[in-house]
């Protein structure tokens, strides 16, 4: 009979989807341990959030009123105190940018092991087996630990919890030591604006690391011109400064759903796939038939982009 504590994520007044996913993952673990599922929501309009988080399978929602936005010092203190109060076996947090900003600190404060970026979780009540990916998804590993632990879950691996539950909503009065809050969020900024909105395009010609050199982008530009399509890219191209940030598809860029997405020399890292898997038709051009992009492609060409792209451009000239 061990409980599970799931932590939710929100930003600028909105709960993020991954919050409902931590509820699902947490509920599955709680079913396996035979315990209750506690959900924590910290900062922001917590009363309103708590109503939304009252999904099927949630036993208690703990609300902590403190400030509007995420602050890792506050989250860390609150979660350590909640852990002391509830003594859960597992703390489940999202593997989001903010999750990674507090979960390791919570684990280390509590002297608990942490397993991040899990894509599967299973427990027999004593031993937890967490599935993770390595080498960009080329392999998966089973990671075992006994006793209590903090885990973070990858987004979109668990379905979001739905339905309405009959959770008790409890205010948790954490004692926040203001002395130890040594970071302050001063604002937010939307990046990647500009004149092109790739999320509006019907056809995206999307280019990745396989293009190798900046000057080779010309091939992609010629194809986009011939097709009257818009150019987008995966992260490395933007990191290299070859295309502006507003062209980036993925977790930290734009989410796109064009009619046709042509992935050229893109391996399909999970962060990229998160931004384009909703495309109606996905075509992948890649020399590696085992590249993760092939898992979500509808059509594939296992060949060198430097041969295929010019041939395709030719088709439309």
């Amino acid at each position: 009979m061990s409980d599970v504590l799931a932590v939710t994520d929100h930003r600028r007044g909105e709960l993020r989807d991954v919050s409902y996913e931590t509820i699902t993952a947490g509920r599955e673990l709680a079913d396996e341990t035979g315990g209750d599922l506690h959900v924590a929501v910290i900062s922001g309009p917590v009363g309103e959030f708590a109503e939304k988080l009252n999904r099927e399978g949630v036993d208690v929602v703990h609300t902590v009123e403190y400030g509007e936005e995420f602050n890792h010092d506050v989250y860390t203190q609150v979660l350590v105190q909640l852990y002391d109060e509830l003594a859960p076996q597992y703390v489940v947090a999202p593997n989001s940018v903010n999750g990674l900003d507090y979960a390791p600190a919570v684990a280390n404060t509590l002297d608990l092991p942490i397993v991040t970026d899990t894509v599967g979780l299973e427990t027999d009540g004593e031993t937890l087996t967490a599935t993770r990916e390595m080498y960009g998804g080329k392999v998966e590993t089973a990671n075992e630990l006994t006793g209590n632990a903090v885990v973070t879950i990858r987004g979109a691996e668990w379905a979001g919890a739905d339905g309405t539950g009959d959770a008790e909503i409890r205010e948790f009065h954490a004692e926040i030591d203001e002395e130890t809050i040594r970071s302050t969020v001063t604002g937010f900024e939307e990046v990647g604006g500009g004149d092109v909105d790739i999320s509006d395009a019907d056809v995206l010609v999307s280019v990745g690391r396989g293009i190798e050199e900046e000057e080779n982008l010309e091939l992609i530009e010629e194809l986009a011109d011939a097709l009257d399509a818009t150019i987008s890219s995966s992260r490395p191209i933007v990191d290299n400064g070859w295309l502006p940030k507003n062209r980036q598809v993925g977790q930290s860029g734009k989410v796109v759903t064009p009619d046709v997405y042509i992935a050229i020399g893109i391996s399909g890292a999970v962060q990229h796939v998160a931004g384009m898997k909703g495309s109606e038709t996905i075509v992948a051009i890649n020399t590696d038939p085992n590249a993760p992009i092939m898992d979500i492609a509808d059509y594939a060409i296992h060949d060198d982009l430097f041969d295929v792209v010019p041939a395709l451009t030719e088709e439309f000239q």
Partner: protein
Amino acid sequence: MKILVTVKEVSTVEDEFEIEGTTIADQYLGADLNEWDDYAVEEAVQLQEAGIADEVVTVTIGPEDCEQTIRQALAKGADRAIRVWDDALEDVDLLDVGAKTEILRAVVEAEDPDLVLTGVQSGDDNWGATGVSLAEELGIEWGAVVNHLEHDLAEGTASVRRELEGGVEELTEIELPAALTIQTGINEPRYASLRGIRQAQRKELDVHTLGDLGVDEGAVEGAVTVTDMYEPESETDATVWEGSPEETAAELGELLREKGVAP
């Protein structure tokens, strides 16, 4: 100001490979400087060139084999390097976050830097947790997934941007000393110059055992064990077009016309 940068040598895997037990067979593995750490080193070196930092020291946990990777960081401008290795680490198949935190804590305490930079994650096993865990252990401030850093010497603060999901950046003021995990794209990592490469050979590279650092061997055993490694079942149900580039391009052209999206 002194900056400590954590540098990891990561494994790279060929497209075709075989698994032996819970690891990938040696002959399919390569080694490289972790991409995120490359950006962290560059950021530190730029702070030094701007006159903000006086010294840039790298720290690596790894066997002698990874000294070539360490020299790469030195060639890019780090002043000296520390490598930690021990017989006790040979037998550990997974150095988990807690174990790395213990080792790095000892190094940071000995070096007493004002700023610790780590990569957001390592490219091979992407745990993404050591920097924040380390900061908490040291009782210093931190920031995860930083893609812009401005340092205010007089105020003793770092103004950072944290790259959140969906093209949103969080602007945060962080009191120093602090540990920041550095995201790719924060700068343009340089290629080492020939002169840099020559100089790197002469730069100090100290090797410490756990005993030298006062770290208990039991502390690095870790709580997490890898019990299985396998290739995930391919979920692909893609139609694969075969033939010459002209033939496959023609197939794709046909599809685009069918969809009514081609001119």
